[in-house]
């Protein structure tokens, strides 16, 4: 039997790494990928909690399913926007999309 802490630890590390990626990367697509890591961490959390703590109602499982679906949709939408920005600026680096400021 694997204790729940193991899963939660994995998820916590994954989330932290994802956040690091968001902060450290400069390509819009890589930032998007880092966000996906964070969302995957969320799914692990929900499923682990559902399986260990809430086996009767298991809302966490349903939550995780929706998170997966919405995250996928978000990738699609965000890539659409990245493409538009790329067409206008010939770059998908977020530093090149910084004309709006101050």
């Amino acid at each position, binding site marked *: 039997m694997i204790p729940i802490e193991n899963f939660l630890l994995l998820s916590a590390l994954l989330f932290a790494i994802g956040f690091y990626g968001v*902060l450290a990367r400069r390509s819009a697509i890589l930032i998007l990928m880092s966000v996906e890591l964070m969302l995957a961490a969320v799914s692990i959390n929900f499923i682990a909690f559902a399986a260990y703590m809430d086996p009767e109602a298991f809302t966490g499982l349903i939550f995780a399913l929706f998170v997966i679906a919405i995250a996928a949709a978000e990738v699609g939408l965000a890539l659409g926007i990245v493409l538009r920005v790329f067409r206008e600026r010939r770059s998908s680096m*977020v530093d090149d*999309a*910084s*004309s709006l400021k*101050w």
Partner: protein
Amino acid sequence: MTMEQVWLLPAIPAGVFVILSLFNRVLPRRGDFVAVLGMGTVVVLAVLAIADFQGAFHDGHFAPAPGANTYEFTWVNIGDGVLRIMFSTYFDAITAVMVFVVSFVALMVFLFSIGYMHGEERYGWYFAVLSLFAGAMLLLVTTNSLIFLYLAWEGVGLTSYLLIGFYWERQSAAEAAKKAFITTRVGDVGFLIGIILLWRVAGTFDIQELIHLAEEGAFSETYLTVSMIFLFMGAVGKSAQFPLHVWLPDAMEGPTPVSALIHAATMVVAGVYLVARTLPIFDLVPIAQNFVLYTGLFTAVMAATQGLVANDIKRVLAYSTVSQLGFMFVALGLGSVTAAMFHLLTHAFFKSLLFLGSGSVIHATHQQEVEHLGGLWRKLPITTVTFSIGSLALAGIVPFAGFWSKDEILLEAFELNPFAYAVLAGTAALTALYTTRVVLLTFAGRPRDQHAYDHAHESGPIMLLPLVLLATLALGSGFVAFDGVGRALGFVGGIGQVVTSHGEPHSFAFHPNIAVPATVLALLAIGAGFEYWGGNAIRAERARQWAPELHALLVNRYYMDNLYQAFIDRVVLGLAGIVARFEKSVVNESGVDGGAQTLNWMGFRLKFLQTGRIPNYALGMALGVLVLSIFALGGGE
């Protein structure tokens, strides 16, 4: 029209505002007659209300039948009494004085404006805003609810802003308008805080109820002191007291009739009115009351010294207004509603007279620097006479109105606070000095700007009528101090019998030991003024006509001129310069403008956090959530 129906007074000009702002372009003469008719009606109604007020005295005390001098209805009732705001009016002696002053001076200014503003592009809009101002001001003085008082308070501020910036083509006017609005708003913040503080404990905005509760000890003394000082902040801003006085001289960018109405006679005394109205509460908290006293005292002196060095005729008058308002606050700080309201009354007449007179000069010459005026008495005889009457009233010379009211204040000070007395007496002398200077430089001597002088001509009757009427009042209104005069007007007695302090009527008595030194001092100051600014032409003229043996004396006087000059240069002007520099660097730049600059600077630094780069934004979020969770963990254990 009874005291109960006094709510009609603000309603009429407000209605005029609506009509004029919508239809001024289609009405004949841009609708100025509507404004004048409206204001005339208000004056009549105000007089009727005051007549009703006169009938409510029994045994020499104001004792109206219950409810006869109030009117109220529930405006908002939230949570069944948790927050109940009533619209209510209240009429007593203070209201009577204010209503008369506001409506009468407003009518005079409206009349004057017909001539003065003739041909202006936004003539109709001008009268619309002026009417709105009158409505807000009348609401301010008649309402009994602090909330509506605050509404009206902001309303007069807004109209003042619009009118100061009336000549918005001039950058300086636009800046002055903004400065006035922001500076007074600083005071208003304190005012609002004060209102909320009082309300938190008392649960009501009704001023009379608040006074009642405070006298019964519903508040702790410290709490009340703090609340009243906050409340007083509103008065400091609106009445241009130190350190928020800086806006008033700049406010002279507005049309001159506006200065007469708003920045001399009515709006700026709103602070005096507020403190007078709540004086029973101030009486309970000596610290707050002393705060009022010393603020007023300091402002009176400081502004008077500044008046000595200003060159713009209107600015001199503005400084003098600030100084006179200081006098009124001193009276209130000493606990005398009578003296404060009396001075408010006479000051309204003679100061609006002075402003309208200066308006007449400016209208004639298009010049408002005294350096460029001079000798105008030949061209503008009526203006000169009326202006001089106003000046004598301001200088406090018997028997002009200012003498009697200033005497009341000096008397109070003499009895209660000798230090204040000494300072005020000195300030009164300074007042006489700078008044003399303005009059002489403007009207006497040789014209210094020949072109302006050649084109000058006396104003038309529509402008002279207000001048004459106001001059009459500047001459005569002081006599209401006497019981006999008061009775002749239908009151129970002199102003001391009607406008009572602490509910105790008193009769006017002449105190030679106060009046004589004050008068002598004022006369000396005027003499000094004549010596210094009399103008060579007049002096030479006089010297030829009198006797040749006096010529030597005149020469000697010339040395004395140097002496005066040295004294004034080194001491008075030096002091004034120090004050001016203090004001410029400390108050104006660090205090008011400086405050704004610091904020602007902070805004400037902060805006660079907004780098436009997504990872930087995300870092902000990350740090935010980290701080929240780390502190949550720290606090949770």
